[in-house]
Structures are given as structure tokens and as C-alpha cells.
């Protein structure tokens, strides 16, 4: 039967699989990917030596939108960390909350208006949870209380399943490393190093690509049917209470919307603004930047230009420090 042949094959192929599987965390941390920013944020928050005064969380719009050092200058020397990352929505930001060190005076969460309306979209997927897990993050009981078990279920999976699920790290790293070489328009170095102004988008898209993005990203009917979901209000209040217990102020800022988005009618502007204003006075401190920027202050459909960022930083400083 040549059973020794079979054993020989099975042993070496299986060894290859097992060694590959157990090397997943170190490969993940060595090769790097767009998720490398998670590691930087976690390390920054764990550095208890000199905690910042102000910590900002949010997605790539914030990465491009607020200059922490400029904000610091305007405010007369407060230490501001911009700990945003690509696709970081409210729930993903919440994973970092347990790591926010004592001594921080204020946490500011930036959100997109549509994610306050379509709130389930704030749930992070397994890819995000896997990435946190591989960087050594484990949710503490306070985070389970804040986010609930269902959102954090993935962290309870056996380690070998998480390693197996993470097997695409090699091909992901290959694709993202090569992309760094070709995409000169992206400042990808900032992902791994910058904690003040980690902007990645540097040049405005050419007109054709810009308008294609606008067209693709204009959600029909969104603007006329917009409503902040009650779930969003409840969750944001929960976050506020959590930080309040820790002696930290918590604020929520709504990003500017590009006026070129075809459905962004004047009617919507006033409706959305009204809703947000009402929320501000009745529920929690919510700062709206919805109407702040002009179309030419956007690089693409959502990300601000450096001029747009300057305007956003100044407007933000005015609201925070007035």
C-alpha cells in the first residue's frame, strides 16, 4: 500500500500548514498592511508617560481633516492626538476607549451623518476584530458592558480559528505593499507613524474620477429621508456616561458633507441641520460641521483638502475652546 509514502506526504504538508498557522501573528505584525495604524494607536494609548489632553477618533475623513498640531497651537499648547484610521466607525473606535489613559480630558468621536441614520453600518466586521486580536488587543469587561457580547463574540473564538481566518495576510500585504509603490498620490507612511495629522490623500482627483466617485457615492433618497436613529442616540449617551464616570468629557462631531453629492439639496441641509441641532440641545454635545466646506475643499467625494482641513481644524477649535 506504500503507507509510508502517505505518512511522509501527510506529515510534511501538515507541518507546513501548522507552522504557517502559528506564524500568523508574527507575520501579521512584521509584514504590515493598511491595518498597521491599529498597532500605532494601541501603542500610543498604552504610553502612560505623558497622556494627551484631547484624543480624536474617527475614519479617514478625520485623518485628512484635523491637524492635531495646528489645533494644539490654536489652543495654546494642549496636547492633541488624532487617532483616526481608515474605516474606523463608532464601534471600532469604541474598542480603543478602554485604552484611553487616565489624564485625558476630552475624547472626541467624529462620525459621518449617514452613519447616525443607518446605525447598523457602524458594526465592525470580523476582519477588524481579527486585526485587533493579532495586535494583542483583548476587550476588558468594561468594553463588553459598553458594546455588548454579540459585537465582541469574535474575540471569544479559539485562537487557531482566528489564525486560520487570518490566512489572507500574506496576499493582503503583497497587494498593499506594491500599492504603496504605485500610489504616489497617497501618503501611506503616515499610517504607521503619524499621530497628529495622519493625512493620506494628498492630491485632488482628476475631474472625471472625482465626478464618478460623486455619482457612485450619492445615496438616493438619503438626504430627504434623513433621521438620526434612536439606537444611535442611545449608544452615544452610553458612551458619554462611560467617559463621564471616568472623569473624561465626550463629544461627537459630524463631518462636513461634500455639496457636490447630487442629493445634497438645500432642503436636506436645513432638515439635517435641524435634527442635529435638536439633538445638541436635548441629548448630548453634538457638533455639526455638515455645511462647513465648499466642494473645492474636497479631494474626492468625502476627504478634505489641506485648505479644507485647516478650515475644519479652526472651526473645531472654536467650538471646543470657546
Amino acid at each position, binding site marked *: 500500500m506504500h503507507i509510508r*509514502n502517505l505518512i*511522509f506526504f501527510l506529515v*510534511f504538508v501538515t507541518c*507546513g*500548514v501548522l507552522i*504557517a498557522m502559528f506564524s500568523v501573528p508574527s507575520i501579521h505584525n512584521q509584514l504590515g498592511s493598511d491595518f498597521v495604524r491599529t498597532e500605532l494607536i494601541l501603542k500610543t494609548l498604552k504610553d502612560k508617560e505623558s497622556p494627551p489632553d484631547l484624543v480624536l477618533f474617527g475614519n479617514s475623513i478625520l485623518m485628512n481633516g484635523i491637524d492635531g498640531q495646528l489645533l494644539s497651537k490654536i489652543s495654546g499648547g494642549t496636547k492633541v492626538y488624532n487617532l483616526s484610521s481608515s474605516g474606523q466607525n463608532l464601534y471600532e473606535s469604541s474598542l480603543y476607549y478602554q485604552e484611553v489613559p487616565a489624564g485625558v480630558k476630552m475624547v472626541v468621536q467624529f462620525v459621518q451623518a449617514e452613519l447616525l441614520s443607518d446605525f447598523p453600518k457602524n458594526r465592525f466586521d470580523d476582519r477588524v476584530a481579527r486585526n485587533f486580536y493579532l495586535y494583542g488587543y483583548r476587550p476588558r469587561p468594561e468594553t463588553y458592558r459598553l458594546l455588548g457580547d454579540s459585537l465582541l463574540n469574535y474575540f471569544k473564538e479559539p485562537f487557531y480559528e482566528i489564525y486560520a481566518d487570518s*490566512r489572507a*495576510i500574506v496576499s493582503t500585504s503583497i*497587494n498593499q505593499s506594491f500599492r504603496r509603490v504605485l500610489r*504616489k498620490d497617497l501618503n501611506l507612511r503616515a499610517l504607521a507613524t503619524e499621530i497628529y495629522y495622519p493625512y493620506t490623500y494628498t492630491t485632488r482627483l482628476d475631474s472625471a474620477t472625482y465626478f464618478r466617485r460623486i455619482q457612485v457615492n450619492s445615496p438616493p433618497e438619503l438626504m430627504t429621508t434623513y433621521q438620526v436613529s434612536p439606537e444611535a442616540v442611545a449608544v452615544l449617551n452610553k458612551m458619554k456616561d462611560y467617559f463621564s464616570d471616568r472623569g473624561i468629557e465626550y463629544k461627537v462631531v459630524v463631518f462636513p458633507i461634500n455639496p457636490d453629492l447630487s442629493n445634497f439639496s438645500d432642503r436636506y441641509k436645513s432638515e439635517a441641520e435641524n435634527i442635529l441641532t435638536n439633538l445638541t440641545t436635548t441629548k448630548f454635545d453634538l457638533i455639526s460641521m455638515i455645511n462647513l466646506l465648499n466642494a473645492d475643499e474636497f479631494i474626492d467625494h468625502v476627504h478634505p483638502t489641506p485648505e479644507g482641513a485647516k478650515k475644519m481644524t479652526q472651526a473645531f477649535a472654536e467650538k471646543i475652546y470657546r
Partner: protein
Amino acid sequence: MLFHTFEFLIFFIVLIVILSFSAGMTWKKWVLLVASCIFYMWWNPAFILLIFFSIGVDYYLGEALFKEENQAKRKLYLVLSMCSNLGLLAFFKYFNFFSDNCLWILQLFGYEPSWTSLNIILPVGISFYTFQTMSYTIDIYRKKLKPAESLLDFSLFVSFFPQLVAGPIIRARDFLPQLKDKSRKIAFSTESLLLVTKGLVKKIIIADNLGIFVDAIYATPDIYPSFIIWIATICFSIQIYCDFSGYTDIAIGLAKMLGYDFPLNFNKPYFAITPSDFWRRWHISLSSWLKDYLYISLGGNRGGTLLTYRNLMLTMLLGGLWHGASWNFVAWGFLHGLILVIYRWFDIDKKIASWNNGYKFVSFLIMQYWVLITWITFRQTDASLMLATLNKFLFVDLSLKIQNIGLGNLSFFSTLLILGGFLAVHTFSYFTGGIEYFLERQAKWKLAIILFLTGSMLFFFWPTQESPFIYFQF
């Protein structure tokens, strides 16, 4: 049950354990038959009845054909066999295609009949096992084959699980004698294990990963520059080759482990320099079936030039339609038929032997260019997407702009690496007579390293979403 799943591994281990405890050939055949039925019923238990029907009809008609001396009655038995097999195929595979096209024609003439399509599920492997049973009765009719000695032998010939759902289409004259050979035993030879490993690498690392890129590009071909369409088309040609030949490698390897030999189904088709050369290398079991049972039955090249062209074209059109009930497969068959006719017209197959290597290389490039065009018609079932892809492929726009088109998220660079790796290994394999034969000759420690690396590669490149073999749908 797919070959590259955990459930199949368990199934195969249990089968080997049972077979190793069983004595006698009849017992082994029964075990294999039952295992084959379980393998097939895993997908849809009801459709095993179709296989039993096909087995029953062709086994008894085969016996009757063999015993019958009267030519008219023999013809009748043959027609009965053809009708039952082609009837199954026509109903399950082509009924909706036929009815939809009838409806379309009626609508062209202004009729609006009340019409509903039947929701017919295509039984997996039906195109393969019906061709096998048809070749059995035709061979007996042509007096080239004696009937199977028992219903058990014939049932196993039709339903033997390694080849049941996607070939190779084996011939009774090749397989039935093996069932009588007592020297055939379970054997994990290095060759069989390497074949299975090679098949897994082709399917998992190459085909499935290239498929992710192809799917993304072919979904919106109009937004990409021509050179990306070219890369995607080359990727698809490699994907379908690795997907199908990977399946075949595993099937041949598994059969070898169980003690049986299957014929070669692929012989490095992308090294072909003429269309007939291509068809001697691509899906050999189907192309030889079409030649033996369709082209020759139509008259082959015996009826003069025009009839030969007609026969070639009909064979390729029906070969295209065999792949699926859709006009894009007909177009695929037509393009292959057309190039065969053109080459025959200019008698290139005969002239090429005297050409120097430069001309042969040009012929190779022309052949590959044509094959790539045909793959676009094969892959793009939607007519507008097919035309958009062909437009970009044929009328090259010379744009090299790849910024801002999201390639970083489409596995573009890992795709290029896999593509480069495949081309290097495939060329090496071509000049060394086959990678498995090269590896077989290596020292054990070298083979151990290669297996170890293969295991690691399989882990890292195993796609997170399972994709079945492409030819399962045929």
C-alpha cells in the same frame, strides 16, 4: 462533495479503511459503488435515480445490441439508447434554453404567449456520465467493445466517484478491463500523491486566487484600460485551465490510489501552435469523444472539402453547447470551429512541420491570441459585458493608467505574482516532461521541503470563500 473539503478527506479516509479490510474484487467493487453513490447523493440524493436510469437503460441495451444479429433491431436499440441519454440531457440542460429562445422568436413576430420557464435544476455531472454511457452503446454497436460482464461492473464504470461529476470522460474499453485485473490494489504511490497535491495547488493557490481578480475586472470591464483587460483575460485562461486540470489531476491521483488508471485529460494546451494541436491537448477526453462519436459519425473528412468544414463547424458548435445552454458557449464553439476551418483551408497543419522555429513561434502567438478571445466569449455570459470586454481586448487603448482604479483592493499584485509563478513553473514543467515526474526523481529531503512549503502556501492562499470547480456547472 468537493475534493478540496474536509468532508471529502474524511470520506476518503473511511473508504480506504473499509477497502483495506475487504477481501475479494467483488466486495471492493461493491464498496466503491456504494461510496460513489454517497459521494453523488451528498449534493442531491434524488438525482442518483437519473444515474441508475442511465445505467439500467444502457446496460440492458448494450447486452441486447451485442446479442442481436439483425441490423435493423441493432439500430433500433442504439436509437433507444441515444434517445434516453440525449433526452435526459435535453430536458435537464437545454429545456429552458430552448423554451426561452422560442419565446424570444415568437415575440419578434409580435406574439405574446403566456409562457413560464420551468425551474429545472441541472444535475451535477450529467453531461459527463451521459457521454460515457453513450460511448459504451455506440462502441458495442460498432462491434469495438464487448458488454460489461456484470451490472455491477457497468454501474461502477458509470458512477466511479473520482470522475463522476467532471470527468475525465473515460471509455468502457479502457476501464472495464481494469475491473477484472486482480493485481490492481490500493497504493499510495509517490506519483498518485503528487498528482493530488498538484491538483490542489492548481485549484486552490492558482485558480481560486486568479478568479477573485477576474471576477472583479470582468464585472465592469468598461472602466479599466485595455492592458488590465488583457491581464484579466490571461488570468481567466490560466484560471480555467488550473481549475479543470486541477480537478482532473486529483481525480487521476485518487483513482490511482484506488488501483485504477484514467487517461490523460490535459497536455499543456497553452503550448499549442495550431487549433488541432490545441484540441489534442485541451480536455482530451471530450475532444476525442467528439471526434470519435460526432465528427466521424457526421462523415469526418470523407465527404469532400465543404462537408469536412461543415462537420468541423457542427462538431465545435455542439461541443460549445455541451458546456452550457447559453449562446456564449455557442459563440465559443463557433470561434473554435472557424479557426479549425481556416487552418484546414490553408492546410497549415501539414505545412507547419517544415516551418522554422520563428514561424512556429508566430503561429504559437496567433493561436494563443485566438484562444484568449474565445475565453472572453466563454466567461462573459452577458452579451453587453462580452462586447465591452472584447472591445477593450481587441481595440487596445494604450492607456497604462492604474492609479485610482482600486487595484490595491482587487488582489492585483498578488495576482501578478501568482501568474508569474505559474508561467515559470508551467514552462519548466513543459521542458522537464511534467513537474510530478521531476519531483519524483528528487531526494526525499528535497521533496520534504517542497511539501512543507506547499502546505504553507496552501494555508496562506486558501481563499476565505469556497468556490466549486468551474466544470461542475457543465
